[in-house]
């Protein structure tokens, strides 16, 4: 009972804790008085509760304690802040270099972060991402086993019937079509799907309902396409004409528009139509046609673990497939869930997801880590170097009463401040410079969202990590000195410091790697830029024909154009479209690229023959073919002219062999190619050779012809060299990028070296003075200044050269199909650059020692 009458203890303790001492007595008295008053006419429990309420209510600024220790700590940190700023301002160059180096490094790590986050979030927003699977198969072609993302047409139906675990199935087939609405005509890609597609991949619709796609005449648009054709209004109910080919046209009515796709999509669509339209589009459509491979088959299971059961029972499809179709020997089927599809996409050929930019994903993190290490090492050396100038400050602090940990905290705080500036600058650099660069290189819409919490956590982690890692050693080192030694001037500073030397060595190795990278990239880019395409791409133009009759019409006009030297038709065109097919030679199957062309195609593009000759004009029925050198190499035909191969159960005889040429840019290897004769009715392209210098005129002429003949079809044509414009732009960009990185690396290494040598020389000034007094000349001084660094350089070279060579060779080989033949040029040039920089640094210090008055060095003390 007694307890209930007294002041509640815990709330009172809380009150005592927060209340400042000079008000504690009066306020607690007031509260107590209230409590006893209330006891008289209330139950003790209620009084106690009300007391608690009062305590909580009184917890306001007027009653709060000012933190006892806060004043001095805050003042101390203010002082640190001030001294850091001052010392930064006093050495503007070195602090700029430090901050800039760090910010470039931090920027790189940020880009890495954005890429990884972007890539790992792709397609994860679909509600059923874990339950939806893409069907793939393994096939052995040319002795290489690969995984393919396409599926035989009947698979979907059979899977659905055979497995109760499968809830939904959606087939996907893409078409290139022309879409027309009133005067707007564009080439587009249409995706034919089963209506379940929109249930499995949850793309929300802005207008309309997904189920209306069940109607065979309906079409769903992406938000982008809706704007392109109909503006910002709701287009539901409007009509679009889709031309699948010259004869196959069909009017679709718009039943829905998708919301804008999130940035993090790998799978998307422009137009969706019902899959049943395949019957209309493909003349030989048959639901049980195992030869018909469609773009994708997606299945949805109720329980993701069931997929193993399904996979284990796919053997019968394999058997079925291999009986029907002998060219494509399927080894087995597989399923990939949507959630991880993008990560695996680069291992799957022809899948509907987007491949990861492999080079960027491996190269960048490595580069980012290297840059960060370089910047940290640099900071460490610079910080220790600059601490010589601040020895007195440290001594005074210690005399006043700072213990070692205070000095460590000071230096760490200073370093964190600097890293903070660097982080800000890095963020700025990333947003303004790096991301736009990498967006174009990696071809992904990368962006940093400043409201992303993860990004800030990452950034702060990097900040603290970098700040502490780079700051801890200098802080420990500097705080170690004894006050007495500092003031007596007896600190042996930087004379023999193996750790600093190790850092410098690492720094030089990294600089070495970066310079080698820049040189090798530069060489390679130049090499790629000068590399022959294998035919004469200059002065060649092409047109994509809108319809069959177009060839004669255009040819008629072109024949009258004096600038056009020759014109030839083709079904496929180098650099635009090539179809893949299988050929058989003596029971061996090979994958080849097939081009069907007119007989004068080779003269028009100036593709040279190494053996045999081109088609004769009347060779259409003779079933002849022309192949390239790679074809010979792959098939190991000894005597190609007259050799026979089988393609689509027809026998062809090889009458000529052309030199290898690049059908696509230098990222791609040259494929084996077979040229066949194309019927005139099949021509889809016109290629032409024009008089040198008249390319632009002809291009304008072509546009004019097109506008006259086909005002309703968008112009499709251009110069052959423009097909690779993006490739060359990429090259230039990468060249600039690697150069920048290498320059920063050189700068950082040079400054690290400078700091270290200066420090060393300052510490040995007495030694040099004595040497000079005893008559040492320039030679002697130079050797005694540089001796130890020469060892360092040799070590750095011995370790760095092979490392740089291997790393960069790997990088270059990963990027280009035909890299510059391996040479030691890059390493050599990097070495020369590094040596020149080092000589420059040494010469400043040797000069300093040389002009130094020895009397001064000996007078002190």
């Amino acid at each position: 009972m007694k307890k209930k009458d007294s002041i509640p203890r815990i709330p009172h303790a809380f009150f005592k804790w927060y209340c400042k001492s000079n008000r504690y007595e009066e306020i607690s008295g007031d509260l107590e008085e209230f409590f006893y008053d209330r006891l008289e006419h209330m139950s003790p429990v209620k009084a106690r509760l009300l007391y608690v309420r009062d305590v909580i209510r009184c917890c306001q600024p007027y009653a709060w304690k000012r933190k006892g220790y806060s004043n001095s700590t805050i003042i101390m940190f203010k002082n640190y802040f001030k001294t850091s700023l001052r010392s930064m301002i006093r050495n503007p160059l070195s602090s700029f270099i430090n901050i800039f180096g760090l910010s470039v490094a931090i920027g790189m790590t940020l880009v890495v972060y954005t890429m990884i986050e972007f890539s790992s979030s792709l397609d994860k927003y679909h509600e059923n991402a874990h339950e939806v699977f893409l069907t793939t198969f393994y096939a052995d072609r040319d002795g290489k086993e690969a995984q393919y993302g396409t599926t035989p047409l009947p698979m979907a139906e059979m899977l659905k019937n055979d497995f109760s675990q499968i809830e939904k199935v959606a087939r996907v087939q893409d078409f290139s079509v022309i879409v027309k609405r009133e005067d707007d005509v564009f080439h587009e890609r249409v995706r034919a799907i089963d209506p379940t597609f929109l249930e499995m991949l949850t793309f929300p619709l802005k207008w309309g309902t997904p189920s209306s796609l069940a109607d065979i005449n309906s079409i769903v648009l992406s938000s982008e396409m809706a704007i392109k054709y109909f503006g910002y209004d709701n287009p539901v109910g409007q009509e679009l004409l889709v031309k699948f080919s010259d004869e196959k046209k069909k009017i679709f009515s718009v039943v829905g528009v998708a919301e804008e796709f999130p940035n993090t999509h790998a799978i998307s669509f422009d137009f969706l139509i019902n899959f049943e339209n395949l019957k209309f589009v493909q003349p030989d459509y048959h639901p049980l046609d195992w030869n018909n491979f469609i773009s994708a088959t997606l299945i949805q299971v109720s329980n993701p673990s069931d997929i193993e059961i399904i996979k284990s029972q796919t053997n019968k499809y394999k058997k079925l497939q291999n009986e029907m179709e002998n060219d494509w020997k399927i080894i087995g089927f597989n399923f990939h869930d949507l959630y991880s599809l993008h990560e695996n996409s680069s291992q799957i050929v022809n899948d509907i997801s987007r491949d990861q930019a492999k080079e960027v994903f491996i190269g960048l993190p490595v580069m980012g880590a290297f840059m960060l290490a370089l910047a940290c090492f640099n900071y460490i050396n610079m910080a220790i170097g600059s601490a010589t100038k601040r020895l007195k400050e440290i001594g005074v602090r210690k005399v006043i009463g700072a213990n070692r940990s205070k000095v460590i905290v000071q230096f760490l705080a200073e370093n964190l401040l600097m890293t903070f500036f660097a982080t800000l600058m890095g963020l700025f650099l990333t947003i303004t410079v790096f991301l736009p660069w990498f967006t174009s290189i990696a071809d992904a819409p990368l962006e940093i969202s400043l409201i992303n919490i993860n990004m800030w956590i990452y950034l702060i982690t990097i900040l603290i990590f970098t700040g502490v890692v780079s700051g801890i050693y200098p802080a420990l080192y500097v705080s170690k000195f004894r006050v007495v030694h500092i003031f007596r001037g007896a600190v042996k500073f930087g004379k023999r410091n193996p750790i600093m030397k190790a850092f410098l060595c690492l720094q030089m190795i990294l600089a070495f790697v970066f310079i080698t990278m820049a040189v090798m990239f530069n060489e390679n880019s130049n090499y790629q830029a000068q590399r022959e395409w294998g035919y004469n791409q200059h002065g060649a133009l092409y047109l994509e024909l809108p319809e069959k009759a177009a060839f004669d019409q255009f040819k008629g006009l072109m024949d009258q154009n004096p600038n056009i030297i020759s014109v030839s038709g083709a079904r496929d065109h180098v650099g635009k479209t090539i179809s893949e097919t299988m050929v058989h030679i003596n029971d061996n199957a090979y994958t080849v690229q097939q081009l069907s062309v007119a007989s004068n195609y080779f003269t028009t593009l100036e593709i040279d023959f190494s053996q045999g000759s081109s088609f004769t004009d009347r060779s259409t029925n003779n079933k002849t073919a022309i192949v390239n050198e790679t074809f010979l190499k792959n098939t190991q035909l000894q005597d190609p002219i007259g050799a026979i191969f089988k393609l689509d159960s027809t026998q062809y005889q090889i009458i000529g062999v052309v030199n290898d040429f690049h059908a696509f840019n230098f990222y791609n290897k040259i494929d084996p190619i077979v040229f066949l004769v194309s019927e005139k009715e099949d021509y889809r392209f016109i290629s032409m050779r024009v008089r040198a210098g008249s390319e632009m005129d002809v291009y304008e002429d072509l546009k004019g012809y097109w506008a006259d003949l086909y005002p309703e079809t968008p112009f499709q044509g251009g110069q052959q060299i423009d097909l690779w414009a993006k490739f060359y732009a990429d090259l230039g960009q990468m060249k600039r990028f690697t150069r920048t990185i290498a320059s920063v690396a050189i700068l950082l290494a040079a400054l690290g070296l400078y700091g270290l040598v200066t420090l060393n020389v300052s510490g040995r000034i007495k030694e040099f003075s004595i040497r000079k007094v005893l008559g040492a000349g320039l030679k002697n001084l130079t050797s005694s200044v540089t001796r130890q660094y020469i060892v360092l350089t040799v070590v750095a070279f011995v370790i760095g050269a092979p490392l740089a060579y291997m790393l960069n060779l790997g990088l270059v080989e990963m990027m280009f199909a035909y890299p510059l033949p391996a040479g030691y040029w890059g390493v050599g040039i990097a070495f020369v650059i590094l040596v020149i920089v080092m000589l420059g640094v040494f010469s400043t210090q040797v000069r300093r020692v040389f002009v130094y008055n020895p009397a001064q060095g000996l007078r002190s003390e």
Partner: protein
Amino acid sequence: MRGNHLGEFEELVLLTVGVLFDDAYAVAITNEIGKQSGRSVAVSAVHKSLYRLEEKGMLSSRLSDPESKRGGKRKRLFNITPYGKKALDQSMDLRSSLRNQIPDLAFNWK
């Protein structure tokens, strides 16, 4: 203006301090306001106003002798300063002058 501005609750506290002359401390003021205005007031609100008024110079304070009722603790007694009186008067004048300016017509609701 800012210096001598009085909030409504502050004015109430200031007046009450006057009323309870020489025995004005937080508990008494809280009780008095509660009794006279009939509204329930938190002691913390009174504390806050008292300290703020003191900061503004409208109240002065001293500590009393220890009292057994409060567990032997002293209480802080407040008194109005001349400046406090001036602020109070100004505020009252403003109110009455405004009140007098209201035309009778405004109260004629018929």
